[in-house]
């Protein structure tokens, strides 16, 4: 059971799993690879382009969720803990409707691992560089088979 994070989301797009069986585009995979290399600014740029170009409103919050989790880590690296709480928390909540898997991404795993970072920051008010090095999760995905 994931502990509830108090973060208010934009009501603009409906979150549903209707599109979750689609295959990630080449650009989407590039964004995930950037995320996993810790290139959080770059993943934000790539996912922002995908998010803005996406005509299907049911999947836009999926992109935004991953994007905002990455931006949360970007703020974390800069020691901007208020930014971490706000943006990481929202990103996690945007992803909730897409769990456990969507687009081949292991969404629940990302939610759980990102939530662990969120709650550590909430509890301690900050993280040490050693915490940052060990705590930041990756996005795991695999090709859709169903």
């Amino acid at each position: 059971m994931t502990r509830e994070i108090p973060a208010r989301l934009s009501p603009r797009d409906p979150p549903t799993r209707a599109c979750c069986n689609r295959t990630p585009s080449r650009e989407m995979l590039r964004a995930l690879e950037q995320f996993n290399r810790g290139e959080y600014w770059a993943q934000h740029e790539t996912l922002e382009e995908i998010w803005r170009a996406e005509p299907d409103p049911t999947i836009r919050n999926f992109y935004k969720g991953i994007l905002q989790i990455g931006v949360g880590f970007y703020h974390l690296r800069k020691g901007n803990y208020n930014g971490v709480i706000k943006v990481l928390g929202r990103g996690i909540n945007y992803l909730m409707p897409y769990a456990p898997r969507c687009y081949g991404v292991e969404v629940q795993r990302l939610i759980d691992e990102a939530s662990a970072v969120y709650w550590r920051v909430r509890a301690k008010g900050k993280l040490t560089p050693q915490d940052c090095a060990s705590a930041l999760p990756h996005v795991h995905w695999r090709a859709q088979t169903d």
Partner: protein
Amino acid sequence: MAYVIAEPCIDVKDLSCVAVCPVDCIHCGPDDRMLYINPDECIDCGACVPECPVSAIYPADEMPEQWREYIEINAAYFRTANVTT
């Protein structure tokens, strides 16, 4: 250095900027006369700038002199407001 919303937004609140912000950092309450950017949340991408119909958004370090007070006005808003977007 975050982006900041200045005086031209007052009583306009067009919201085009809100729709394109990938991190949802532009907020306002129902009784507010303008929109505000949370400097802690903004990632400095500038996506909001070309959307503003009244050219109210600037990087903080490029804010026109007559509106420089809005850097603190934006920041102060988030120290006191119960924001709803």
